[in-house]
């Protein structure tokens, strides 16, 4: 029972709720000016505390039910995920590391470089054999998206100053509205 995934999740949630309740005072700021009742709104602590208490109660029920052996629907939604293969898990972990790294460096290295690395890494992890294809797409597609987003959609993407300095005048020559 303690090994089942949903039990562990619920226990984790319960723990989180209890901690959040206990530390509530420090985690939620109080307004610096206290207004009289007619004009002051809800206290910022009220709803979170209510919800956390609710979570504790429901989690408690769930755990109590499990202990009594009631209602076991685990695995119903995703039967395909049962069973483990170590190769897959290693790939997944590697992917997670890649993704987290890319999320952290995107501001430093810029969009085009980071996306190149991300796509390259993912392609290899997912089993693409053709290096030419990988490189072509990993370099080309982010570039297309970059032009689309910054020029057509007029939204900014993080990019190195050097690259931007080269691209901006070039893109300025494209027709726009």
């Amino acid at each position, binding site marked *: 029972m303690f090994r089942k995934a949903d039990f562990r999740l619920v226990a984790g949630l319960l723990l989180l709720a209890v901690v959040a309740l206990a530390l509530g005072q420090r985690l939620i700021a109080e307004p*610096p*000016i206290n*207004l009289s009742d007619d*004009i002051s709104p809800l206290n910022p602590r009220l709803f979170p505390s209510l919800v956390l208490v609710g979570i504790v109660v429901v989690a408690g029920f769930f755990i109590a039910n499990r202990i009594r052996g009631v209602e076991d629907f685990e695995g119903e939604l995703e039967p395909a995920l049962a069973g483990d293969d170590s190769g897959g898990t290693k790939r997944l972990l590697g992917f997670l590391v890649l993704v987290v790294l890319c999320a952290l460096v995107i501001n430093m290295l810029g969009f085009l470089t980071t996306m190149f690395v991300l796509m390259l890494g993912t392609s290899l992890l997912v089993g693409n054999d053709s290096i030419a294809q990988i490189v072509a797409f990993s370099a080309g597609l982010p570039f297309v998206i970059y032009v689309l987003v910054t020029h057509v959609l007029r939204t900014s993407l993080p990019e190195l100053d*050097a690259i931007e*300095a080269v691209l901006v005048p070039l893109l300025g020559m494209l027709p726009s509205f």
Partner: protein
Amino acid sequence: MANVSTFLLRVTRAVTTSGVLVMMLVGGPALAQYPERPITLITPYAAGGSHDLNARVFTTYIQRYLDQPVVIKLVPGQAGQKGTLEAVQAPPDGYTLIFTDNYRDQLYQHTFRNRHYDTTADLISVARVNYGQVGLIVRGDSPYQTWQDFEADARARPGELKMSHSGLWAAFFVTAGQVMKDRGIRLRLVPYRGGGPAKAALLGGDVDISAGFPSSLVADVEAGVIRILATAGSERTIEDVPSFAELGISASAGFMHRAVMAPRATPADRIARLRAAFAELQDDPDYKAAMAQMGENTEYLDGEAYEDERRALGNEYAELAAAIAAL
């Protein structure tokens, strides 16, 4: 022999080309004039609100005086703190400005605990574009024909009459607080997400009185849907409607100054350029016509003059916040 000279030729060409490129990249910015790319105007207000609409008008016309577009970036949220934070953290190169108002600028330091910025220290005024004057409004079919009617009822039933406003410590709330303080009445203030919902609440009958900017209520007044009981200031802006001063309410209450500001560290010459552009804008007949069509005034104050105004307001607001809290 031929190989060496061809080789040398190629090398020289390569070096020269790259040298030119490098110079273009490096020397480029220094040679160009400010502004050489679009300027972002952060507007920390809800879409469609009076700030948004005013901004759309003046950004359209100020292009003529800056030779670059000024692009509005709406960043609503947290009573404007999100947008203000973004503006304060932006590089102070003159390409990021913020469109704000006096309450956010000078009052919020007393009412919202904010460790991330200090508007007085971090922002400098470029121009006060115009101001909005708050008016107190009731439904067209309400029993209150004049402000005196309303006040009498409010005195008779303290804490029972309800007023909708656009958010804690925003223009309508502060005006309400000042009215309550100056006239000694107690109303129940109900928050809404902005002027639009506050007006809807009044029209739907959930509250008895609200506030609004008369310029945006012309159609409603004409149709008899809304009645204005009083307007801010010392003089009347509408014929039969008394001004605050006449009714014994502070004459400086209910003014929302809409001002464009820049991070304080922005180079002085760029600030000067911006200020000059705004000054020129005031003589533009199309701009004035567009503002008039929207029902807004163009009471401009240049950056320096508004800096003085800010200081004066800042001093007032500490007391005001305390007074409203004590109500």
